[in-house]
């Protein structure tokens, strides 16, 4: 019952008349098919907005979102506090209903917001520059790998085994057709030994991609990596949780050439996995080699400060098959959300959120470690806000029992090298002591009790 078409019947008739037509259907007579107007499994006239909202509200209510269950799960998507002002501002129609700012004079606000995003992210990563966003963290990492391959002309990519497996999968998907060989560099006790890195290095290696922190929540010491890689002419790539960078040594401080990350922790809703925000930063050397939009500051004809899309010679609409990437639409609205989030929290707020996440996770970890039968992994290694444990029972069953008690517990892991009983936990700054005590009590009860179905 809605089509958002403004025409009155009379206007339609007059417009058709102006075109010398008598019916709308004549407008598609020249279409190269006789199978027009297929029958679709939809009511002829659709729903009212009230009806459709009711239907979707019903579906939404079936899910165990974080307003229903207490979330102790991360693994790439994090349940952080998001100030309401973020939603209020990015929801403004001017941002929401504009497109890529091809006409800078009519899009200065949007361009400035993106420019501020680039600035905030490059500063947070300690890198020279940032692009204006990519799809998500995984595709950003994959694009960074492609930069390394193109830049070095080499075909082997070293990826830390500590990388989120879904990120590794995406890199594999992106690089498989290009003759790139992916080699996983194993962890030792949750960290990459520089000796292990050296063993994998050769003159065919385009780069090494490490994680801050690892999928297991461990914080690596990358001392000497930059030098070891440079010595072989390989690039140093890091993939970082931007929230963690409020606490941890940055890609810039480690000497990375390119650094990527998933921007979701910066004020983006969990939203069942998307849309998220791909971050890509680089040292100035790679300014003309990275993919995606870039906004630059310049002046207008009167010398006033102005912003424009710049260095477009890298992009698909100019270079076509020779472009750095095929990316066109990116995640601008979410990059603005992240900029607003970072502005609202500021350096101290971001530090507090990150440090409280860390502290909550460590409290949870200690508590779990005290439960008989649960074994902590990576003992003695520093963690950010995630950590792994081995359970004395099947992790999926354990998770199911926690969910029944109102907790989205750690992520059950399975597959090669992980066993069936491994679980990856996370706690963010918004978890309270009471919630932590609650999940620990639930865990004890499940392990003690009879409901291991």
């Amino acid at each position, binding site marked *: 019952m809605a*089509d958002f*078409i403004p025409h009155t019947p009379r*206007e339609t008739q007059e417009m058709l008349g102006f*075109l010398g037509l008598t019916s709308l259907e004549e407008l*598609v007579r*020249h279409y*190269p*098919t006789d199978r027009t107007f*297929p*029958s679709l499994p*939809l*009511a002829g006239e*659709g729903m009212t*907005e009230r009806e459709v909202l009711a239907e*979707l509200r019903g579906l939404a*209510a079936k899910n165990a979102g974080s*307003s*229903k269950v207490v979330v102790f799960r991360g693994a*790439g998507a994090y349940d952080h506090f998001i100030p309401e002002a973020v939603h209020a501002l990015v929801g403004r*129609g*001017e941002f929401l*209903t*504009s497109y890529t700012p*091809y006409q800078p*004079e*009519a899009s200065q606000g949007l361009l400035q917001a993106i*420019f*501020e995003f680039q600035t*905030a992210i490059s500063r947070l990563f*300690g890198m020279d*520059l940032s692009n204006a966003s990519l799809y998500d963290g995984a595709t950003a990492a994959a694009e960074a790998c492609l930069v390394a391959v193109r830049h070095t002309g080499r075909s082997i990519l070293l990826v830390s085994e500590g990388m989120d497996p879904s990120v590794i999968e*995406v890199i594999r*998907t992106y690089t498989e057709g290009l*003759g790139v060989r992916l080699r996983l560099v194993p962890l030792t006790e949750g960290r990459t030994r520089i000796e292990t890195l050296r063993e994998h290095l050769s003159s065919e290696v385009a780069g090494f991609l490490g994680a801050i922190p690892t999928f297991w929540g461990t914080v690596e*010491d990358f001392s000497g990596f930059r030098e070891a890689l440079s010595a072989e002419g390989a690039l140093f790539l890091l993939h970082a949780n931007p929230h963690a*960078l409020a606490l941890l*040594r940055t890609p810039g401080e480690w000497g990375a050439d390119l650094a990527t990350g*998933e921007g979701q922790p910066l004020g983006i*809703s*969990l*939203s*069942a996995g998307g849309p998220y925000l791909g971050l890509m930063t680089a040292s100035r050397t790679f300014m003309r080699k990275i993919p995606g*939009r870039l906004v630059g*500051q*310049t*002046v207008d*004809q009167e010398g006033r400060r102005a912003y*424009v899309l710049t*260095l477009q010679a890298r992009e*698909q*609409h100019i270079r076509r*098959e020779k472009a750095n*990437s*095929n990316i066109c639409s990116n*995640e601008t609205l979410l990059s603005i959300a992240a900029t607003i989030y970072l502005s*609202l929290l*500021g350096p101290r707020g971001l530090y507090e959120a990150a440090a*409280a996440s860390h502290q909550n996770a*460590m409290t949870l970890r200690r508590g779990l470690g005290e439960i008989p039968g649960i074994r902590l992994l990576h003992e003695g290694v520093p963690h950010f806000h995630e950590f792994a444990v081995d359970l004395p029972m099947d992790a999926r069953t354990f998770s199911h029992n926690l969910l029944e008690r109102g907790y*989205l517990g750690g992520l059950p892991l399975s597959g090669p090298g992980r066993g069936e009983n491994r679980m990856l936990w996370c706690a963010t700054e918004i978890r309270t002591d009471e919630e932590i005590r609650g999940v620990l009590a639930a865990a004890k009860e499940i392990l003690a009790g009879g409901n291991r179905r």
Partner: protein
Amino acid sequence: MEPSIWEISRPGARGVRPVSHPVGKTDLPASLCRQDPMGLPELSELETVRHFTRLSQLSRGVDTHFYPLGSCTMKYNPKVMDRVPGLTGFQDLHPLTDEEGMQGYLEALWTFSELLKEVLGMDEVTLAPAAGAHGELTGILLARKYFEKKGERSRTEILVPDSAHGTNPASASMGGFTVRTIVSKSSGHIDLEALTEALSERTALVMLTAPSTLGLFEEELPEVVRRVKAAGALLYMDGANMNAFLGVLRPGDLGFDIVHINTHKTLATPHGGGGPGSGPVGVRSHLAPFLPNPRIVRSGKTFSVSDQPESIGRIRSFHGSSGVLLRALAYIRMLGQDGLRRVSLYALLNANYLRKKLEGLLPGTGEGLCTHEFVLSARSLEKKGVRAVDLAKGILDAGYYAPTIYFPLIVPEALMIEPTECESRTTLDRFAEDLTRLVRLAETNPEKLLRAPEKTPVSRPDEVKAARDPVLVDPAAEKRT
């Protein structure tokens, strides 16, 4: 102009506090800790709100201006759709929730793909791609996998018409293929001879934009399909222009093997200043096994997520951009079958009406009816020193966003105009008058156009300076290190 947020920043100022208790130092070893200052701005909540409210006001959107940006389908984004991703149970759902805790979400996405299958006439759909170009890459990787499984690894070429979006060749290239460009006929239609000549046992895929970027539907499409299939290649449809045929015809019925659509174009999800978009891909059954992981599967009344062994693999971290996809589902539900058809018919009506209103003003491409958009060439104004960009700037001053310019590349001084079905005749009439006035102005007082825009917050930025000496990070932030 609004100062940069670092210029407003006051060291020590605070906005929102994320936690209610004081947070002390962590026990992390100093060698692993950040030493550099974070360099983030420091402001009150009000300062942040005022800054971004003002920035928003310095940007035009569909909500404020007619936005005839060709190829981008800047239609109205119904406000009700903005409510959908914020619903409790969607917005706050962790993507790795146990399946039992996300049945409603999985059902919504499954329902949407079922509907899309029907709308596209395809056998399977993936909702994973994050944008149109991402959908293209997905389609290309599907083709690669398909021929790999078929043992036809020698198919290493992708044919792309010269009228295609730049993303087509770029995606082909990212997928590891060699791109061969097919030159269009002067009419803008595909040159059947050139295509036939280019087709070979090396051809994996032919990527067509239908209707083409010139706003024309290939008359000889059935013959194109026949020849591509005869060559053993797959046929890809760039569905960016689906607003020309939504509910009217189905790519599957035309013989395409793969098609992507852009929900932010055809299905009215907001463009967000450059994203998030979403680019679902539909395929015929021979390509279904290779669709990206994870897949949402229904078994009875239960929905689950699983990986398929022959898949090209993951193309992003999680399932898809649900915040976008759920909006699009709402849109389809509200329109119904008749509403979907009306979208295209009225998009065509508006484009043809505006095109005829402008007849004789500037030369266009194609004979007869256009589809949902059309291309004009401003080449005739060059003698007065006026280029397409100058006309675009004049259009800004007249109170609109500007059409797409310099695309498609095969039309010199192109202006690509797409009114969408959402604009009223009044708006089209006024726009036609204003454009007519501007073209006359180009002839009588070109200087005026070369100075345009004059009514915007800034005049034309120095793009050469921007590219020659790139400033990509706010100098005011650098100072605060």
